[in-house]
């Protein structure tokens, strides 16, 4: 099988989420990549270094600058005439683009796969990860998104892919990019961090969230996450949210502070290697999944912990 993998990039370098998708694709056979962007030659040469990669298709055009699905999907459909599967990491771009490609190919997408069982059979989470389904696709071509935490990352170097330019399918004129508010990353990125410190509604407000969670995270060199309740209450922006519909994470250590542990939150972090929970309610569901629990007032515990580390 020949698989085309969507490369997540910022024109200069390749994002980590791509590497897990490459590993999933390599289980199906030959791996080709698609780098679509505007001024993305550097990202294309970085992609060609990924271990095990064959051809790197590069579509460099202003129409692809912001990965607008209206413009990118027709490009992928054209490339799919000589590929058997399309795989994207389950990033916001991947989730936006892949189903559009699937419908244009008349294929039922397999979302957020956890494993590749065979060429046509995969496992995927349903019901917020409370039920793992094994599904077999009857479609001739496959369209798949990959859960990043479920696959090892392919080596970013050691490969020798050949870069090949593909012609643009143009701007379809249906949509335009107006702008973005992308938070500056002062800390590690959530989905690739080794340690995550997350806060919940019990943090009270944005200022106390920052005053308690941020110093501890910085002491541990950790990324900062949050429960939906904390994001809804406006303590931190949406890109901090961990859970069923937020980010799915599986760090070495996940520290849940003032998070009760709703199933929607657990769905996003329960594959973490070690879970540490700090909560004043000893019956909070988070303690049912925590390896180490500490019951008490977080406003006393967290500053003391930060101090003693």
């Amino acid at each position, binding site marked *: 099988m020949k698989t085309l993998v969507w490369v997540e990039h910022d024109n200069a370098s390749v994002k980590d989420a791509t590497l897990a998708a490459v590993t999933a694709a390599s289980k199906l056979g030959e791996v080709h990549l698609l780098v679509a962007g505007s001024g993305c030659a550097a990202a294309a040469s970085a992609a060609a270094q990924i271990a095990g990669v064959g051809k790197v298709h590069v579509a460099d055009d202003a129409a692809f600058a*912001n990965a607008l*699905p*209206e413009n990118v999907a027709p490009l992928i459909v054209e490339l799919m005439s000589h590929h058997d599967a399309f795989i994207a990491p389950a990033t*916001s*771009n991947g*989730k936006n683009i892949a*189903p*559009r*490609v*699937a419908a244009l190919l008349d294929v*039922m*997408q*397999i*979302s*957020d796969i956890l494993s590749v069982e065979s060429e046509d059979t995969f496992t995927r*989470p*349903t019901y*917020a*990860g*409370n*039920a*793992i*389904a*094994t*599904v*077999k*696709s*009857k*479609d001739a071509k496959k369209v798949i998104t990959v859960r990043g935490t479920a696959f090892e990352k392919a080596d970013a170097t050691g490969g020798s892919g050949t870069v090949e330019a593909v012609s643009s399918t143009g701007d379809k004129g*249906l*949509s335009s*990019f*107006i702008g*973005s508010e*992308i*938070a500056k990353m002062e800390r590690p990125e959530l*989905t690739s961090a080794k340690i995550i410190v997350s806060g919940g509604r019990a943090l009270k407000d944005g200022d106390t969230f920052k005053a308690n969670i941020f110093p501890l995270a910085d002491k*541990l060199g950790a990324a900062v996450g949050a429960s939906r309740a904390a*994001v*809804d209450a406006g303590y931190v*922006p*949406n*890109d901090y949210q961990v859970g069923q*519909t937020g980010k799915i994470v599986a760090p*070495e*250590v996940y520290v849940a502070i003032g998070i009760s542990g709703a199933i929607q939150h657990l769905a996003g972090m329960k594959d973490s290697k070690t*879970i*540490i929970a700090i909560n004043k309610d*000893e019956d909070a569901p988070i*303690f*049912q*999944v*925590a390896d*180490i*629990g*500490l019951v008490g007032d977080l406003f006393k515990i967290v500053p*003391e*912990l930060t101090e*003693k*580390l």
Partner: protein
Amino acid sequence: MKIIVPVKRVIDYNVKPRVKADGTGVDLANVKMSMNPFDEIAVEEALRLKEKGAATEVVVVSIGPAKAQETLRTALAMGADRAILIEAEDVEPLGVAKLLAKVQEEELAGLIILGKQAIDNDCNQTGQMLAALLGRPQGTFASKVEVEGDSVSVTREVDGGLETVKLTLPAIVTTDLRLNEPRYASLPNIMKAKSKPLAQKTPADYGVDISPRLETLKVVEPPVRQAGIKVADVDELVAKLKAMGVAA
């Protein structure tokens, strides 16, 4: 301008799903069912656009079992004008998108607002597929929607933060959690909803083949995490973290 809002009847989000012992799926017998939470947000957004004068009619559509009528009545009680039920069980997102595309051919709505994903199958596909089949633009994971003349500006929740796109109408929007807070239906409106029009259809009426493309071989519970230990104080926690090599 007309707005179509597809809604799905799913397990209530407060219920913990249990996998059936025979591994064929999740046990839904005698389980509380509700409107998919993201679809409630979609209904609310459509109603707000109508209240602002940006839309004239809100049509809700459900593809599901006969009982999905209850879900449609909920949407009507929130304020939607009329409903269409296409009766069919377990239709995959691709089939749902094909049926909705046919509905749109008849209704010619300016906007179709859907939940970004259903909390049962967690697919996150239908809106994008519908946009593809209709050849129209999509604004997924919306946290803000503004109709301006013949276009809509959609602010989207993306991995790094927010981004805004402008789409030519007709367009497809899928909702994220923070778009709005859905209203509760008042008792008088629940009574009124009973007499609002609800059309009953079948996939055959639209000539759409909805045979499944995916076969579910088995469904299992995820590996269970064992609860660990409780420590008494911060010193003990620090000692554990040091033993794990997390802290120096």
